[in-house]
């Protein structure tokens, strides 16, 4: 009875794992209770607080407290040096959106050309293979020097990291149109542009959307690191700034937020992908 009840509900185990994790975290970071008054006095003399040696890491409860505080000033923009967290997130997402948009308008048409003209694809492939493994952050100093503007540099970094998955997937999708579908076009006399519109384009939609999903994921990864290095706003800058202030609870709140936003972006794109892709 109990077994089948649990077996059908894996989310119960999910909650249990989360509970165990939070419990361990709490235990590991809780200040130890002192039993000896002398020890307490000794501790006070050596500079520690009355509560005993506080762990440098916040407890889950500290994080919750901190997130409530941050939530209170979430949309605050009265002080430009101390923006609410929402604005940082908005800056980061805006950079991702702009960089991603430019990457998309380059990657998708170019990907089609590479996929549809094998000669061109083979000719350009070495450049893609060389550029693809370069860490986007390696471009950072060069981008800052050339563009002379940290905002533009951020967008360039996102552009350069988001372009590859979309380019490669679009090219692969366009090149891998099933021969039977191509035969259909040939038998019924579709002209090249008609073939592309009726067959190649819809056939590569699932691959393109997968590329878009990977690209957004990578861009969201990279923006945090890029903002730590080169920005005065954004969620990455926020983490770095809180680190400088030794506000470790804030860092943890931001980390959880980054994960949550990444998840929502991915699920949203998956949903869009499922609606736009054909089923077989």
């Amino acid at each position: 009875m109990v077994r089948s009840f649990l077996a059908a509900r894996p989310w119960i185990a999910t909650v249990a794992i989360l509970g165990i994790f939070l419990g361990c975290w709490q235990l590991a970071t809780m200040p130890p209770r002192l039993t000896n008054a002398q020890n307490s006095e000794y501790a006070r003399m050596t500079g520690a607080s009355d509560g005993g040696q506080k762990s440098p890491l916040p407890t889950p409860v500290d994080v919750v407290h901190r997130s409530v505080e941050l939530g209170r000033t979430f949309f605050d923009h009265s002080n430009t040096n101390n923006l609410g967290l929402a604005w940082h997130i908005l800056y980061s997402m805006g950079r991702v959106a702009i960089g991603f948009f430019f990457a998309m308008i380059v990657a998708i048409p170019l990907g089609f050309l590479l996929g549809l003209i094998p000669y061109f694809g083979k000719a350009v492939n070495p450049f893609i293979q060389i550029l693809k493994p370069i860490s986007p952050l390696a471009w950072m100093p060069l981008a800052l020097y050339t563009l002379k503007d940290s905002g533009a540099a951020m967008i360039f970094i996102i552009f350069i990291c988001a372009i590859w998955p979309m380019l490669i997937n679009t090219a692969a999708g366009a090149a891998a149109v099933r021969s039977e579908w191509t035969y259909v076009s040939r038998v019924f006399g579709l002209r090249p542009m008609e073939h592309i519109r009726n067959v190649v384009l819809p056939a590569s939609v699932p691959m393109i959307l997968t590329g878009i999903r990977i690209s957004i994921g990578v861009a969201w990864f990279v923006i945090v690191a890029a903002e730590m290095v080169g920005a005065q706003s954004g969620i990455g800058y926020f983490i770095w700034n809180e680190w400088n202030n030794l506000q470790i609870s804030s860092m943890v709140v931001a980390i959880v937020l980054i994960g949550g936003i990444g998840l929502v972006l991915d699920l949203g794109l998956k949903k869009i992908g499922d609606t736009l892709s054909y089923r077989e």
Partner: protein
Amino acid sequence: MTAISIKDLSVTFRDKRGTTFQALSAINLEIRSGEVLSLIGHSGCGKSTLLNTIAGLLPSARGQVICGGKPVTGPGPDRAMVFQNHALLPWKTCLENVELGVRHVFRDASLREIRNRAMMALDLVHLSHASDKFPAEISGGMKQRVGIARAVAVDPGVLLLDEPFGALDALTKASLQDELLQIIEKGKSTVVMVTHDIDEAIYLSDRVVAMTNGPDARIGNIFPIDIARPRDRIALAKDADAIRNREGLIKFLFDSQRPRAKIA
């Protein structure tokens, strides 16, 4: 009158290392107008290659295919094809799939004419009720019927079928064969069909062309099936002519043309 004439046809393939592979050689065949002709043989014997060459999807190495008095240089809607695994576009509805062919063959036709023609073709395969369904929403037999409708809709002089019922269960297959037979008897098109089913070949065809094993496949034997139409599946089981042809085909395919044993 001759619909298709195949003269001294050879087809070769070249693999990535550049070695050539002779798939078909010295094929000579005259296909009469309005005739139903089956190509039968073991898998890999080149029967689909021959069909694709008639369709113009594959180039010939030597010799030529002449269709309607003109040498075949590429695919064309005068030779519409029904594909082995239906080859419907999954992002288009059944009607849109049929319309795709009609629209690009009859380029001057109005939208209404295109729609009417496509609907008539779907009606012919008894699928007008499923016109708005996507291929993923219908059964395998229905998909193949849409494939037939798409080919028939463009009014082809020659209908090419590449193992059209190969992937279907026996009962669906039988009902589709009957449907195809009705369509063939209604229209006057020439039909060339690839199959590996002896009974199907006899039931549907005027002549059955049995091919030798590849590589280097040739026409092994031609069996004329002189049974009056309309044909009756049940009567055919007792028909002396059909039984004799069946025996001849079995003898040819399973005796003289056993697939070559692989050398270990």
